[in-house]
């Protein structure tokens, strides 16, 4: 079985602050890490390979520094890594990113399961995974908390919903986005770390992929970030006390006051 894991390098959000004047992230001195949700995707990708045999390839679109994230994935047990990096991709929104990654995955060929984290901790959109599946025209299951079984060219998975979970059977190839309930990512072993240090990382630029230029980077991105800010803390609620009849009247009046 061939598994592909998509990962993103993000600033360690536990360290990130926003500059109140410029409304941009203060990145200085902030460490880059693998998007925490992607760690579960990597772990699951490695477990699938250990259980069913095959190969796990990790792929990332990002700046050259994302090399470190890919090496970390190798140290956890991924077999191969691919970095998709080009200035032409700068400013990509989720649509352009999904497109670019899908084209790179198409070039990797023969895949059975594509794994993504449920969302990235910096953008929190949860759109790139589904975007890739759409571009590749394959089924997708989001918020997967357990892969029950993979056989007969089908995967049976449990997907989280607000009320509980659903059991979904899907044909392969498919794309799954995973939640943190799915596993506990391993600590990379010493041998894994040594292997990762020496590993050759496949590196693709825009010209290596069969891409339509207008779908890339800023040009291919219908959405853009106009402002980042820390939302003001939610104001304290007001509690009405007294007997129900009285308080109900008060509520209705308060609502009327606000023209609702």
């Amino acid at each position, binding site marked *: 079985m061939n598994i592909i894991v998509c990962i993103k390098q993000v600033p360690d959000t536990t360290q990130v602050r926003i500059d109140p004047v410029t409304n941009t992230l203060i990145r200085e001195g902030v460490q880059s890490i693998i998007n925490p949700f992607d760690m579960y995707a990597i772990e699951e990708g490695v477990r699938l390979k250990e259980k069913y045999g095959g190969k796990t390839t990790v792929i990332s679109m990002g700046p050259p520094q994302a090399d470190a994230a890919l090496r970390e994935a190798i140290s956890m047990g991924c077999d191969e890594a691919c970095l998709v990096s080009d200035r032409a991709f700068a400013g990509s929104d989720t649509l352009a990113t999904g497109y670019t990654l899908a084209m790179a995955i198409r070039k990797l060929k023969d895949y059975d399961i594509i794994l993504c984290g449920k969302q990235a901790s910096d953008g929190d959109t949860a759109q790139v995974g589904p975007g890739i599946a759409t571009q590749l025209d394959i089924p997708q299951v989001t918020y997967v908390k357990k892969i029950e079984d993979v056989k007969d060219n089908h995967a049976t998975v449990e997907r989280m919903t607000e009320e509980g979970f659903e059991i979904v059977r899907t044909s392969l190839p498919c794309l799954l986005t995973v939640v943190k309930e799915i596993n506990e990512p*391993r*600590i*990379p*072993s*010493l*041998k894994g*770390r*040594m292997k990762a*240090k020496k590993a050759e990382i496949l590196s693709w630029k825009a010209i290596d992929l069969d891409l339509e230029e207008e779908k890339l980077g800023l040009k291919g991105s219908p959405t853009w970030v106009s402002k980042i800010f820390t939302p003001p803390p939610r104001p304290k609620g007001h509690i009405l006390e007294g007997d129900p009849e009285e308080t109900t009247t008060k509520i209705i009046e308060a609502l009327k006051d606000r023209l609702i």
Partner: protein
Amino acid sequence: MDYLLTEEQVMLRDLCRQITDEKITPIAAQLDKSEEFPWEVVKVMAESDIFGVYIEEKYGGMGGGLLELCIATEEFSRGCAGIALAFSATALGTDPILLFGSEEQKEKYLPSIAAGKRLAAFAITEPAAGSDASAMQTTAKKDGDHYILNGTKHFITNGGEAEIYTVVAMTNKDRGARGASIFIVEKGTPGFTFGKKEDKLGIRGSATRELIFTDCRVPKENMIGKEGQGFLIAMKTFDMSRPGIGAQAVGIAQGAFEASVKYAKERKQFGKSISSFQGIQFMLADMATQIEAARALIYASARQIDAGSTKTVSKDSSMAKLFASDVAMKVTTDAVQIFGGYGYMKEYPVEKYMRDAKITQIYEGTNQIQRNIIALNLIKETSKS
């Protein structure tokens, strides 16, 4: 200080630090209370290839040496010295095999130890034979292709939990120190049972237990080295293992120190953080300096042994163990002082560091015995020239 570690050694240190922060520190206080053996952590260490760091690659290890062992021990002990012992006491039990084991013994035992599948332990101490190991009562009598062991070892780290025991016993009592031999005894061998498990002041996440041998038949292939070499092997084992105890001490001190700096910056009295008081600052400065000096001595002695320079090894490794353990006791006591009344409470981590530090002055030769070794060697050295 930059100890000019290789890239691999830095990688090892970072890995052990991650294991410590994620898996050891969070459960240290709980195991201190429950005295449970840290099997969960052992599993993580094993999967991370840590048990093989000081074992040759051909036996499944990572091919490092004593310095690697010390780096790992120090990092783990920073989180919990008791938990760290599952690893470092296994190294102690393995040392006789590494140093004097036959090729067959190495092939038989080292791979499973390197993989962390089996823990080891070393047993020399007896109720009436502590500092004076030659007073040992346990005997091994030859009987055809076997030796028959009888006697009791006590205070054995990893006792009951380990699968592989290297045990010193008298094969010829009349020959005194030259009459001891050392055997590999596997858990489950008929006649080999476990006695009392100790309730200790510190390192409570480590098992310390009695080993009882009653007509326990051990195949003669399990003897390490030759008959009569038991004490020699034990002494060489201690030469190798003392820097490891020192590393444990440095780790304990480092953990207590880090907690102290953090607390001193946070705790406010007289309207200021207590770290602004010179009385506290000087304590912190002394702690840091002593730790660095201890670490430098440990790394230097470990590197010397790894390089094969053994001329003054007994003295040097004794100095390293002696100094580092005294530093650990001093630093952890001061850490409790910096925490004030809070430091005395189990809710805060420093009283545990202080309890854990004490053992490093006692085992693998008390610090009085270390001073004896140092003095004896330096008198010998000076009388030669």
